[in-house]
């Protein structure tokens, strides 16, 4: 989204996914923000987000498959970023059973370049 976008209080998601608005805190445009939020969220919060969004993933993937990547509209980009958060959170829920990568200690691994969307 460009800086000129007028901020509106309602969550801009495709109409079919308007019911996901309560998960809007997970609409995060960068991988670093998504990972930081995962680390800062207790397991029950991660599980709740996973349980709310995962059942809609098949539908979200089918929707996003119809949206061209170039010039993606803001509502679809928001849905994409929310789904990207699920990707990040899925490791905690499906593999680690904890927010952090086990035995990763103080190690960090930060995105320094990633696509704008």
């Amino acid at each position, binding site marked *: 989204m460009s800086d000129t976008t007028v901020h509106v209080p309602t969550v801009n998601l495709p109409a079919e996914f308007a019911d996901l608005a309560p998960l809007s805190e997970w609409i995060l445009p960068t*991988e670093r923000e998504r990972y930081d939020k995962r680390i800062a969220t207790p397991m029950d919060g991660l599980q709740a987000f996973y349980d709310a969004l*995962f059942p809609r993933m098949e539908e979200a993937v089918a*929707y996003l498959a119809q*949206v061209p990547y170039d010039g993606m509209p803001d509502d679809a980009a928001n849905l994409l970023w929310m789904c990207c958060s699920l990707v990040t959170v899925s490791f905690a829920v499906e593999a*680690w059973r904890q927010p952090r*990568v086990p035995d990763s200690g103080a190690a960090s691994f930060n995105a320094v370049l990633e*696509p704008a969307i």
Partner: protein
Amino acid sequence: MPHFEKPAEGSWTEHYGLGTLPRSYADSTSPAFYELEREAIFGRTWLNVGRVEQLSRVGSFFTKELDAAGTSIVIVRAAKDEIKAFHNICRHRGNKLVWTDYPGEESKGSCRQFTCKYHGWRYALDGELTFVQQEEEFFDLDKADYPLADIQCEVWEGFIFVNLDATNATPLEEFMGETGASLAGYPFGEMTQVHTYRAEVGSNWKLFIDAFTEFYHAPVLHVRQAVSDEASKLQEYGYEALAYKLNGPHGQVSSWGGMSPPKDLNMVKPIERVLRSGLFGPWDAPDIGELPPGVNPAQHKAWGIESFLFFPNFMILIWKPNWVLTYHYWPTSYNTHIFEGSCYFVPPKNGAERLAQELAVVTFKEYSLQDGNTLEATQTMIESRTPVKEFPLNDQEIMIRHLHHTVDEYVQAFRQQQQPAPSPA
């Protein structure tokens, strides 16, 4: 009984004549040895510093901090078909020429000329000194005598390399050797969707290469990333490569990988099933045409990934679903380095493809976080005063033996060069 055929000698290690004795990692714990590596290796071999796509138009530039080689460099597209590299230093008083906000951090951008922040000396993109502030105050100063100090710079398959040894006489293509030639023609240039990660790792640079050139660790260290049935199968089976190929200082590992898509969907995690993607990348691969002969040289049906190590510190991983991962290991001291990993994809056509790529990228990150921290645990112990100094290496760890052996060779050759010839009696 191996699952995949080995050379007639009975092992890859013996085939390549590397010896089978346990070895020491004293080359990874010694500040003095690191100083030798800086001169013998990083100061005189071709180093990959980026890709041509980072310099999209004339005047595009980026800087690279090469601690190991003891310099900072600036790489610029000087003309449509010309990329040049310079030591990042102003000829006037030695100020760092190109930097933004923090002198120690890398910088990138686009400009018509380089202007020193200190006294305003200006240099054309080809390095020529074009303007000196109050030139008449100097004494017999001829601008032609003060161009930027240039560095040998060549491009292989879109990858930009520099060589800091001004006397180097080996062209890049020759240095890349048969390994490079066998990979030429791979459509790297189509993979312009890039995700780059960076980590400061508390280990010697070679130890991380060691971790990424053997997959013997994968069924153990990363076991929790697989679903449990699959995990026990993997551990029982262990790991064997399809083939190893060593050429001069470079090497490659050819590996199986049946995960894109898996034979049985229950083998993978729910997120992988719904996004049709995972560690090996998106299951629905883009069509990129025929692959060069260096990829899957054994033409094995089970092939999934080809890992190349171009000496000293550049790895290219070619994945079956047609995407590429590169690794760089930039030493900052004998027991620290900066690791960079970049995922290169054909740009996604739609949002779902973008999401499938995200899963591959994030999986890579999760694996790397496990690997990176394990290395610090290794470094602290091999550096300790423990009496354990010799370590066995199995046949699947041949690339490790080869890397440390090659480093030894470079350092020995350098030492011999430095020693004055014995005077005749």
